[in-house]
């Protein structure tokens, strides 16, 4: 399974990432130190999903909480790798949802961006301003 990503769309969502070629799979970014930090953070996230979540998803099994399936964890890893390649800023947090999905969240001031990998195979980008959902699109 491959999640399709529209590079132009995604790059437009992360305005602090200065790119010179939004059509490229690996856009050129001016601040390479920052991109390297982003890359390392995404890699740590992938490692965590593989080795912490992937080896023991039952750690999340609880009253009212379904642990993410292996397939959902793999999809989350693919999303993370895709965003790493695109040089996007990493999320501040990754948590399971109540239904076996996985939620990446990044917050800056009043704006919260969410990548939600649902357990039913869907995935989407959401942007909140405060508590208001101002944008939502499938990945």
């Amino acid at each position, binding site marked *: 399974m491959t999640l399709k990503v529209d590079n132009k769309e995604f790059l437009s969502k992360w305005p602090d990432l200065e790119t010179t070629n939004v059509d490229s799979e690996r856009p050129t970014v001016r601040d390479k130190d920052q991109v390297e930090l982003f890359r390392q953070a995404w890699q740590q996230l992938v490692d965590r999903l593989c080795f912490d979540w992937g080896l023991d998803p039952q*750690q999340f099994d609880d009253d009212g909480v379904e642990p993410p399936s292996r397939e959902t964890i793999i999809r989350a890893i693919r999303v993370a790798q895709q965003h790493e390649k695109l040089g996007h800023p990493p999320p501040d947090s990754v*948590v399971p949802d109540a239904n076996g999905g996985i939620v990446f969240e990044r917050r800056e001031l009043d704006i919260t961006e969410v990548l939600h990998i649902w357990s039913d195979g869907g995935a989407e980008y959401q942007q909140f301003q405060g*508590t208001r959902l101002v944008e939502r699109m499938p990945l």
Partner: protein
Amino acid sequence: MADEIQPIADEELLYRRVPASTGWFDQATGILKPDAFGPHKQRDLTGISVTRAKFKSIEQAAQGQLGKSYFLAVLCVGDLRKAKFTVKPQPNVPGGYDISHAELPDLNAANYKAAATLERQRELAEKLCLRVEGPFQTEKASPQ
């Protein structure tokens, strides 16, 4: 007494149990994630569960699966109602009767992906939660 339903007063406090293993509450930052109020698509058919503080101690309300730890998000009924949330007593629970059990029917299995639900979850976590208590470990099997 098993069919008695006591109305919920505005001044009552409610507890929402938050499993520590999920990372929905970060003790270091004090950030509570909206996912703590996400409806389960099979269990929360009529709304997400909360416990009425007037009927249970905080330690009792935090009891869950044996060996697991839980935080409790504390909410005030009056605040919820001002924010247009419905709070409903629901003492009939699977396998018995629990006078302390209530529900927020606006957040339920049928609408768990709806925009309004995602916004309400965030409102609960970021605006309406008074504080988070815990963690409390469950050391004995829950009476439920």
